[in-house]
């Protein structure tokens, strides 16, 4: 369906990311659009695809965090070129506010969805990375949009995404949820009270148009699960310290100095943060899958860095034992094993 050679464009865009060549990336995207390519197709098939590859490079230990960020900067510049084209489309639909909740720093997927919606005639307000719920609420009062779209790619941002859902539906506004933090189906999104879920930019464009104009306030989440997740959040530094002290892998790389990006120490911190966040996510959504999914992610991360695969099981056992005072979480961990 694309009016251009997708494979060739993806390869050229990939080369621009590898060499951190903003000029090449923006030039390529401008060229595709000048030749009549659909802006949404360019966003999804070229830029998002390139960005996914960037994430994989980091996960496999091939790229440093700084290199990943630099490549993301190139993608962001390319997205801006598409945004310029999307803005030429007349506004013919309502208004959508697109945002990432606190702890969500991956602003690119949200901006990509925002520009895709803009290209389909929606007026879009982008609030960017790690937006506090109070700021979103202010915008909802000021703009009175037809919908909110919340992007969540990390499990740790699910509790804040729930606060977005509360702020939005309290005003009767429907909310569309998307991003890898919500997983492969709509279960987690609906569990936190979102009106609908979309797996990607194309689906988001369709889903936004199908939302009802008014929704009731999202019902409360199960009180016991909410209370325990809040306790976990407060205890996070202590739990983190416990895991760090008990996990043999952490002990082997422990330096005592602040975690510098790309050090094994910082990988350990990411792994431990994510593992605890997976429990938060499972508690709030009643979906246990974040726990095995995170274990698989940790296994890949460690394998790429030449670590013993048994370290993943060791971490699972340790996590189960440090969560002994948190009955719901403990049960989730026991079931997952």
């Amino acid at each position, binding site marked *: 369906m694309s009016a251009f050679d997708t494979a060739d464009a993806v390869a050229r865009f990939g080369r621009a990311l590898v060499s951190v060549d903003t000029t090449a990336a923006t030039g390529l995207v401008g060229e595709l659009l000048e030749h009549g390519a659909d802006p949404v197709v360019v966003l999804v098939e070229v830029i998002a695809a390139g960005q996914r590859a960037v994430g994989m490079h980091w996960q496999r230990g091939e790229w440093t965090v700084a290199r990943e*960020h*630099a490549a993301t900067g190139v993608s962001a510049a390319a997205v801006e070129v598409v945004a310029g084209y999307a803005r030429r489309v007349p506004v013919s639909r309502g208004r959508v506010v697109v945002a990432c909740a606190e702890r969500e720093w991956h602003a690119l997927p949200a901006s990509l969805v925002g520009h895709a919606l803009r290209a389909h005639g929606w007026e879009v307000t982008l609030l960017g990375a790690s937006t*506090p719920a109070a700021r979103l609420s202010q915008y909802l009062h000021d703009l*009175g949009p037809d919908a909110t779209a919340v992007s969540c790619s990390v499990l740790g941002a699910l509790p804040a995404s729930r606060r977005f859902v509360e702020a939005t539906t309290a005003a009767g506004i429907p909310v569309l949820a998307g991003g890898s933090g919500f997983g492969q189906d709509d279960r987690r999104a609906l569990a936190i009270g979102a009106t609908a879920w979309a797996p990607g930019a194309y689906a988001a464009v369709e889903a936004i148009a199908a939302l009802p104009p*008014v929704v*009731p306030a999202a019902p409360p989440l199960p009180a016991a699960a909410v209370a325990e997740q809040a306790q976990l959040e407060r205890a996070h530094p202590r739990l983190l310290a416990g895991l760090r002290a008990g996990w043999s892998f952490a002990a082997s790389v422990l330096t005592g100095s602040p975690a510098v990006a790309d050090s094994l120490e910082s990988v350990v911190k990411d792994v431990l943060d994510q593992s605890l966040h997976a429990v938060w996510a499972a508690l709030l959504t009643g979906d246990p899958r974040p726990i095995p999914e995170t274990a698989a992610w940790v296994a890949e991360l460690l394998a790429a860095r030449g670590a013993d695969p048994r370290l993943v099981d060791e971490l699972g056992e340790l996590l189960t034992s440090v969560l002994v005072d948190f009955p719901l979480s403990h049960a989730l961990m026991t079931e997952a094993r």
Partner: protein
Amino acid sequence: MHPGTDAPATTGPWPGLTERVTSELAGSLNLRRTALRLLDLLRPAFADWVVLALPELRTGRLVLHGGAELTATTPVTARVDRERGLGHVLSSGRTDVLHVDEDAETGLEAMIPNAGLRAEAAALRPADVAGIPLTARGTTIGVLVLVRGTRRGFPAEDIAFAEKLAGRAALAIDSAQLYEDRTHVAAVLQAGLRPPVLPELPGARIAARIRSAAAHLDLSGDFYDVLGSGDDWLVVLGDVCGKGVEAAVLTGRTRQSIRTAAYFDRRPSQVLTALNTVLYEADASRFVAVVCVRLRPIGDGSSAVASVAVAGHPPPVIIRAGGTIEQIEAVGTVAGVLPDLAFREVDVRLHLGDTMLLFTDGIYEARGADDFYGMDRLVELLPGYAGAGPEPLCEAVEQDVCDYLGGRPHDDMALFAVTWGR
């Protein structure tokens, strides 16, 4: 229903509806969303067709919300007769009910002053139309036009119930209108205080971030600005005393003073001297911490000279392309509290791929679980971002500081990065 008593929530023909109107309309201060919610609550159970007629506070123009399409808004272009139909309900604050027969015209035009919407309502006839006043805080602010078709009619108790609902809804709508009006005032005033859109610099890439202490406001006491042209630019970053709106107003004045001063002399030392004098003469209790960097390319543009002067502000840090970190030794007194200050400039060279990072004290004084974020943590983080460009660098610092905060409140935070070379 007994006059003078409030019926319990579960009794009456429309159980819980009054309570839902009250509680759900309280969820939004946005006029359009409040109107949508009311229409959604009333249709189709209470009435087959509903329009909310609201004169706009600022323009006085009458707008009809709803109809067959819930989200529609239709401005009224015809003159509204104060003696009949909608105009009469608005001016008198009294309910008006009329019956529309199969063929008669019976005043529908006066109650629904738009041809398209009128056709929708007429399609339901024989129908009954009720114009219920929305009266809040002593003023009739609008009219709820309800239509029931297929001989449902409006019994007296339903009219009484609708008036009660309208009373509850009117309070929420009035609040939303007042809020919208104030928001408009604030937005117009605020527009001049927002961080500026960054220009394209011929020889450099730049990026900036501001994270406001007041999470819901786009206003802060931290600010940045870029001014100049050709091959002579001035980058300014600063922090005024105080927080919130008052601080934001002072940042506006400061930015303007700096722009005016730089028009006459772009040397950072002279800009700061002028700013100090202006602020001191205006109000010696107000002070501003500023860092000023003048950027000029050298020779073929492969490097630049950056002249740095500070007034009570942390000096910038340079991240060399190769990953070494240099802290610039520049000091100067805060601007605005003492007369006749002089400021010293320090010149440094920026080569291709070098980045200069400017930041306010909100960054290193961010308070985490046990301590400040601190300069050491910042200096440890930066080498990893050598050559990454200004945008990724600002993002990385903002993210690291926010992670460190762990959701705790913070001061205004601002970052500005310049990377030499395109």
